[in-house]
């Protein structure tokens, strides 16, 4: 019974982890997009012109 629940939990957790991982990747892409849009008018220090 508990083993069955733990297998169910493992599947849910892994699916959830992949979903959150993709969400973090989306955040990174959004930040990249926002910073680069801003960067066109005011280049960030350390960034190549």
């Amino acid at each position: 019974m508990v083993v069955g629940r733990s297998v169910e939990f493992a599947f849910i957790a892994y699916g959830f982890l992949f979903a959150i991982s993709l969400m973090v990747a989306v955040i990174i892409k959004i930040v990249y997009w926002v910073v680069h849009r801003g960067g066109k008018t005011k280049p960030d220090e350390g960034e190549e012109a």
Partner: protein
Amino acid sequence: MSFWDFFAGLHTLFTQDWDTSLVRVLLIFLGFLLIYLGYRQTLEPLLMIPMGIGIIAVNAGVLYFEAKDATAAREAGTLFVAPLISDPTELMKYLQIDFLQPIYNFTFSNGLIACLVFMGIGAITDIDYLIAKPWMSMVLAAGAELGTIATLPIAVASGLTPREAASVALVGGADGPVVLFGSIRLAPQIFVPLSVVAYVYLSLCYAGYPYLIKGLVPKAQRGIRMDLKDIPKISPGEKFAFAIIACGVLSLLFPMGAPLFASFFVGVAVKEARINRYIELLSGPVLYGSTFFLGFTLGALLSADIIMNSTVAKLLGLGMLALFLSGVGGLIAGMIWMKFSKKPFNPLVGIAGVSCVPTTAKVAQKCAFESNKLAMITPYAMGPNVAGVITTAILGSIYVGVVPEFFK
């Protein structure tokens, strides 16, 4: 007053149960072994030397305390630390007797030491490659959590409670502070042996993973060269903005892991904001101070009475299984990514998703280099390596927050 009162450590060795004495002697030898392997740089010396000295001293230095009254028997103990005290009066007594008790109560039992290590890791971690290749990094890191996921039901099937199983499964994330943070909240009764097992095994990753790589990945694939020009340059502003936003979003989603996220990303933010005095503080005294006390206190916690627990043998096996499965998961994810990648992709990058920063990235590079002297994969491997810290912290907070409710 007898002759033996001058040599209390020896006296207790001969008057305790023979099995306790035997375990004490074995642990003393284990301490010597860890120190030797640390000294030879086979295992991580920063942890192993203080840990080994702690193990030797706590198992050698057992003495009998005075009996409370004429009828009570004398009690064996040490002057190091008593980890399982919950009664406040007893705790106040031990805070004044055991020299590591303040360190344990004020930094271990609330997870502070894990957070301090995370601050230091954040301050020295380069997240360029994670930001440059976010999809690849996050997917491979999630793949390399296979051991953290699959070990949980296996551990439950082996007889551990769901809380203990979740704690030991976290070893698969290969992130010592998260194991510490999770196990102390989920299963404090196994926290000490589990943390020691985790840190010893993490040091062994460097020795064991090359065999796993050679067993699973054909030589031709191990030597695939990757195009380094494909990695875009990332500005400090991007990294800083990502650290702040990711910290806020992840803390909002996983409040149980918020201390870990805050600690890691404050380190990253300080680094990217180029606040040099804070960078020096976090990457020097905070990181190495906490690593030193982590190793020394864990060693001092590993006394015979803690190790003489039937679950310890299971923890040894399950911890190794978790790290093995995570390595396999990372390599499988790397091979799948290689299959669908339009550009040449070395599947060894996948094992770097096991977040033992930077050990697994170094292992991946070493194995690639052995197959092809021109195969440079470290920049790509650092992406999933850093992403692995984030995925392990996410899983740690899911386990701490959800497991007690799910298995009610």
